[in-house]
């Protein structure tokens, strides 16, 4: 046997490994000797593949079944990898791996920062962008499906529903969707909107109100959730973050599970603080334009705030975020910003009395 580096060769025919010696020749070829055979593999050949792990180099050559050489000599590995790098046969992946190995901690921190940044800012942005591209009919279909699945469990007050529909229609809250209002017999101080137009108001919240402005504000707030497609946006956000996390942990099944789960679960989506304030603000603008005093929003929020202090867990108002003094003062600022109304005030008292019923 001549000089060269020790290696192990698998001939691809039998499982008996061979002791081999390997040398890099001047003409850019690998010379391999084992038993009594000798052959050369051109380094630039397409059929030559190599993979390097931390302490071994695997070179294979030819068609299936390929002959394989494993080299463990660090000096040979280093010079081989360098040579391949100069000839341009080192991919982006190996370069990244090399960078990562040279400073694992720093690399990790950089990736972690990128991940957190991507998760907190890029992901919601991209998801909401995607949501806005989806057709509005999707909102309607999602909403219909969700409503029909929960309709059985809701006890609707038909007479008050008709009155609420008239009240809502008078406000003319949406240009794009026709809003369908429901009054449901339930003591919870709560209301929610489904994508596409169903807005459900519980008798519990109606009975707390004593002026039409509050009800107008509630409907305007919920109407904005519908008009601005908040549910769909939140759904896409949630979906995107599940996809993101399950990709990181390499668990694709989670994605399927989430799609299946969320189709039914729109009602329990919680909006972000920003979307809630959006709904307050747009709602007030809408009321202002229709001749309803936006001060009603401030009254509504105060009413809900008091309620929240009395029975904390009952206070949902479509959100897991507690109502804070902040939201009230933001609404107050908005009232003064909007100034006096440009149109004749809308008289909602008769319609409100009808909604209130005999209480």
């Amino acid at each position, binding site marked *: 046997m001549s000089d060269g580096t020790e290696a*192990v060769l*698998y*001939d*691809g*025919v*039998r*499982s*008996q*490994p061979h002791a081999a010696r390997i040398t890099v020749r001047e003409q850019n070829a690998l010379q391999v000797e084992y038993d009594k055979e000798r052959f050369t593999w051109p380094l630039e050949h397409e059929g030559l593949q190599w*993979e390097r*792990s*931390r302490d*071994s180099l*695997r070179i294979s050559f030819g068609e*299936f*079944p*390929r*002959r*394989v050489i*494993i080299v463990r000599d660090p000096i040979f590995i280093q010079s081989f990898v360098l040579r391949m790098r100069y000839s341009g046969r080192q991919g982006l*992946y190996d370069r*990244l*791996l090399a960078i*990562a*190995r040279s400073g*694992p901690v720093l*690399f*990790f921190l950089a*990736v972690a920062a*990128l*991940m957190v940044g*991507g998760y907190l800012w890029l992901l919601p942005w991209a998801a909401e962008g995607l949501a806005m591209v989806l057709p509005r009919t999707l909102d309607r*279909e999602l909403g219909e*499906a969700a409503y*029909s*699945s929960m309709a059985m469990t809701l006890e609707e007050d038909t007479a008050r529903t008709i009155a609420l529909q008239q009240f809502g229609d008078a406000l003319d809250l949406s240009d794009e969707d026709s809003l369908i209002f429901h009054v449901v017999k339930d003591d919870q101080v709560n209301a929610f909107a489904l994508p596409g137009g169903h807005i459900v108001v519980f008798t519990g919240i109606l009975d707390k109100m004593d002026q039409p402005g509050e009800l107008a504000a509630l409907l305007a707030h919920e109407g904005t959730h519908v008009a601005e497609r908040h549910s769909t946006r939140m759904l896409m956000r949630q979906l995107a973050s599940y*996809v*993101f996390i399950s*990709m*990181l*942990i*390499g*668990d*694709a*099944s989670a*994605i*399927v599970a989430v*799609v*299946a789960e969320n189709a039914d679960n729109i009602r329990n989506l919680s909006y972000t603080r920003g979307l809630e304030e959006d709904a307050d603000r747009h709602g007030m603008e809408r009321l202002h334009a229709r001749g309803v005093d936006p001060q009603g929003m401030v009254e509504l929020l105060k009413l809900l705030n008091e309620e929240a202090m009395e029975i904390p867990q009952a206070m949902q108002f479509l959100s897991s975020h507690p109502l804070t003094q902040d939201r009230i003062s933001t609404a107050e600022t908005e009232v003064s910003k909007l100034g006096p109304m440009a149109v004749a005030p809308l008289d909602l008292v008769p319609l409100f009395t009808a909604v209130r019923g005999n209480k």
Partner: protein
Amino acid sequence: MDPINPLQRLAFRGKGVDLFIVLIVNWLLTIVTLGLYYPWAKVRKLKYYYEHTELDGHPFHFHGTGREMFIGFIKAVGLFAVLGGGGFALYYFVHPLLLQVVLAAGVIALFPLVIHGTFRYRMGRSSWRGIHFGYRGELGPLYKQCLTDGLITVITFGFYAPWFTIHLRNYVLGNVRWGSSRFEYKGDGPDYFILNLKCYFFTLFTLGGYWFRWRKELFDYYVNNLSWHLGDDRVIRFKSTATGAGMFRLIIGNLFLILLTLGFGYAWAEVRTMQFVTRNIEFIGDADLGSVVQTEQEHKQALADELGDLMDIGIFL
């Protein structure tokens, strides 16, 4: 280091740091490509496990490529989209209940296909000492077996599930080849049933303490019933040396490793698991591993592998 045990021929030489680096680079590329790198990331991770698992000092090799995984992934997603789309169409236009029916039927119909395809792919793309593994099972018998056992399992409210599992293992592992050699799994439904039943009661009485013992026994049951046939009555049997205490240390240790690092200790936990598995399998019998001839074909269809991911079906049954 453990004393050198000639029967302990498997070893895992991976290191937590190295696997961690592989995983971070995977994460980085996955984020930057908005997820499209996922199939390549999967291959990188698998390759790391294979390369660092050695039998008699020779590493295993995974031949799969990101490209073929990607093609499989796209097909799997397409199949799911068709299934889901069909289900939703029926949901809207015919009857809401049909969605569940279609999805359930889809999962039942796909399960044997996923097992079959995943084994064909994983085995066809694995080799040791240049000789490829292979899977010779056929889809027809597997379907027949799964449907019969599945039906009995449903009728018996799940009591038959241990038999289902064992029949599946016997069939699938019995069709694994390494070149001209073959594997065999001889599990027994009643034994496996009693094993699980025992665990249920003892775990209750020992306030969960028996659970680790049970995990150890499951591992034993897997390993001890497996054998490797190299022709002419030359057989290698496997013997588990796992202990309840060892299983306890592994599981509790990994739990802490992952919890205390908020998940970033995952790589180290994986390495510990691989070390535990390789260290606790002994090879009984000195059949010659050098006389095996290459017989198995390559198989490059990764569809089932990806379907399995989407449906959360592990291949270790």
